[in-house]
């Protein structure tokens, strides 16, 4: 199903096959195209390039056009401080500095950086008709704070009428911005109002609800979808947010997603979030991101949930981390693997597998989730099953289904991270992809050849002549020497004439011959049980 369709389905609270994924790419789009935050947010072309790159790399179902809560504020006279790795900061507040509210005008579509957002939206719409485009606008309360500064918090109580007027104005701005973005082709208008996390529900209902609700009505009347983004500790306001009747609420890591889920679903609203931005997506590795994604997916469920970061992605979030999330979203089996490993990993004892796979036979291990229930695992096992007999007993294969603890141990010991994986003699050979028959045969053959080479190099043999009669022994020795000469083999010949020693070989009467083959199996270390077992099997 196409991204936009999938998101619409999730917004409508219909169960989905796969949870939609919306990476909030803001200035991160600049990072992946080599542009700093300021240049990026000032150019529609650069935004289009950045978002296009993000779409290519992260295969999302929806993306924001720009994530910039300073566009409106800048036009209304707030000064911005630009930074290379961050969206700009609002550093002055006109209403605090004596500007009158009546002097402020609702921005026109050509004002300030609105054309950046609008033109980028138009171009992205044409380029990606099937991906949900989020048009972000600054929520009225946050815009009011930009205009008033932190005075707003005292004025809420000391001069509520003034706040009401400012909120009315900010709502007009919001309605207009929503309209510009809808006309440019956005599917979803996200009202981003992080500052509402700073107030209690009563204040929220008085100073936010009527205004934000009006913007959501505007969006609804235009037959588009809406979302209410908040970040920070806004748990006290979630219900009030839902009562404003957006189609979706989106939160960050400061609120447990299942808490929001319970409230939102009761109110018939979809919800999204809340992958950890800094500690996981920015500072973590791919494994951390996979685990985090699965955790969110499990808590969110498949009805009404949109997987997204908690907020605007930090600019230099490693792209591999986001790709890891994409991979998890699109692959049920990988999710299952993470779930299974997550439960078991804390108690794992890792085996020393350095010497694994030194038996005569080539050992093919297939690490699976469970070949009965996991299709890729099943195909991988089938592939090996078909190929193995062609080697006429030289190749032995085993499946390790990680539903069992010892298989998890085995997997970790071989440093296998993905499921399914084929290891040949303990070395990872094929990861996730089922190899074509020819490639699998070639890989096994390569290993056989290598082993053969090693074997030839390391072989040392002896022939023991056991007997008490010296003449007989010498005669036998001559025959053996003639044979080794004719075969061109390097074999040492030893004579044992001590009766007790002969008896230890089970020989009572000579002459007898015992052939001995030596092979170095390990050196300066104690091999693991698993490894010794492999050696013993070949005896």
């Amino acid at each position, binding site marked *: 199903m196409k991204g936009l369709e999938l998101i619409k389905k999730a917004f409508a609270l219909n169960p989905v096959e796969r949870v939609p994924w919306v990476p909030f790419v803001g200035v991160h789009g600049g990072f992946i195209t080599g542009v700093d935050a300021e240049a990026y947010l000032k150019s529609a072309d650069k935004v289009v390039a950045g978002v296009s790159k993000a779409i290519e790399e992260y295969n999302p179902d929806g993306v924001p056009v720009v994530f910039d809560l300073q566009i409106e504020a800048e036009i209304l006279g707030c000064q911005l401080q630009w930074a290379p790795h961050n969206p700009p900061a609002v550093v002055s507040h006109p209403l605090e500095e004596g500007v009158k509210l009546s002097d402020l005008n609702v921005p026109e579509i050509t004002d300030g950086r609105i054309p950046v957002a609008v033109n980028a939206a138009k171009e992205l719409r044409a380029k990606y008709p099937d991906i949900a485009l989020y048009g972000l606008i600054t929520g009225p309360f946050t815009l009011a704070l930009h205009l008033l500064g932190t005075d707003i*918090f005292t004025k809420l109580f000391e001069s509520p009428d003034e706040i009401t007027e400012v909120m009315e104005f900010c709502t007009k701005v919001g309605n207009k911005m929503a309209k510009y973005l809808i006309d440019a082709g956005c599917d979803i208008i996200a009202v981003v109002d992080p500052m509402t996390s700073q107030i209690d529900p009563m204040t929220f209902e008085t100073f936010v609800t009527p205004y934000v609700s009006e913007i959501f009505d505007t969006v609804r009347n235009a037959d588009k979808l809406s979302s209410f983004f908040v*970040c920070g500790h806004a748990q006290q306001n979630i219900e009030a947010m839902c009562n404003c009747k957006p189609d979706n609420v989106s939160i960050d890591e400061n609120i447990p997603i299942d808490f929001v889920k319970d409230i939102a679903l009761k109110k018939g609203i979809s919800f999204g979030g809340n992958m950890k931005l*800094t500690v996981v997506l*920015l500072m973590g590795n791919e494994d951390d991101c996979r685990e985090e994604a699965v955790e969110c997916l499990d808590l969110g469920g498949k009805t009404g949930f949109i997987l997204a970061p908690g907020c605007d992605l930090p600019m230099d979030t490693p792209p591999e981390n986001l790709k890891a999330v994409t991979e998890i979203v699109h692959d049920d089996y990988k999710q299952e693997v993470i779930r299974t490993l997550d439960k078991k990993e804390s*108690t794992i004892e890792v085996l020393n597998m350095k010497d694994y796979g030194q038996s005569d036979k080539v050992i093919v291990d297939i690490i699976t989730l469970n070949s009965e229930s996991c299709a890729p695992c099943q195909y991988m096992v089938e592939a090996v099953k078909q190929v193995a007999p062609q080697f006429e007993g030289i190749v032995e294969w085993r499946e390790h289904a990680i539903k069992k603890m010892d298989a998890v141990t085995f997997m970790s010991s071989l440093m296998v991270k993905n499921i399914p994986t084929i290891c040949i003699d303990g070395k990872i050979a094929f990861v996730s992809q089922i190899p074509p028959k020819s490639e699998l045969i070639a890989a096994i053959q390569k290993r056989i050849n290598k082993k053969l080479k090693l074997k030839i190099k390391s072989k040392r043999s002896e022939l023991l002549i056991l007997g008490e009669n010296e003449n007989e022994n010498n005669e036998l020795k001559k025959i053996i020497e003639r044979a080794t000469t004719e075969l061109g083999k390097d074999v040492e010949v030893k004579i044992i004439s001590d009766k007790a020693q002969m008896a230890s070989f089970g020989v009572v009467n000579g002459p007898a011959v015992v052939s001995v083959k030596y092979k170095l199996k390990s050196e300066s270390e104690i091999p693991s049980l698993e490894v010794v077992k492999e050696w013993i099997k070949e005896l």
Partner: protein
Amino acid sequence: MQKIPFHIISGFLGSGKTTFLKRIIDQYSGEKKIGIIQNEFAPANIDGVELQKSGKDFNLLEINNGSVFCVCLLGDFVHSLEKFIDEYRPDNIIIEASGLSDTTSISEVISAGRLAEKIYLASNWCIIDAQNFAKVGPMKQRVSHQIRMADVIVVNKTDLVGNEMETIKNEVRKANPFAEIKETTYCDIDFELGNRAINKFYFSDVKTMASPEINSMVIKNGRKMSRKALQQFLNEWAPKAYRIKGFVNLTKGKTAAVQCTFDSIKIVEMENDFRPTELVAISTEFTLREWNRSFKAYC
């Protein structure tokens, strides 16, 4: 390199943070190299100038963004802080976190990645303005999270309130049953820097810590645990930690406030306040990865 102790001083605008900072600088500058971080979301830059006018020796990192308010902007904070540490190598770092800051997120980022190799969370102070706090409602909403995760709560400007003190203290206790509460005027209280702070808060009657390899770590997630599993989890980890504290959401819908030092485990059940589980540990014995894995296994 020995890890640098990192202290958080939070509290809403006007509560007395800058006054407190000035006192700390007065007390320690010359003796210790102090690094101060201020975010200027509020007009704190004015305070920054004021601090510098004092002529005392300290290094100041100003965050241009109100960054420490929202997790979206913490990434940049991480870079600036790293650079600041490498440049000045302070003996101690104190962050003046505005009323909008989320102190748990700050604790979490300084305890992760490369920063965790350089610094650790030594103490978390929250200053409240007695007069404003007594005015109920909206103010509390904003600082409640800071109060919840603080080690010490300084109730400042007590001279401006009368018999409301008991009510204030009860309110504070309700949010954070374990914090030490200090009452004062003009922030006239002693502040313990560095390891001394750790000794003081984490094991006042145990000998000074020898190992420099202290890790602070934060678990923050939406998981829930049964009361019994929580007890078992803490039984396993408390003996290995100088301190574990925070809040864990329980499966039955309540929240448990937790405080452990080596040999004591305290759990107080509270009404669920619908925030994530947030646990902070300070230890030389284990890493966040191990602790987090184990936490998940108990859930």
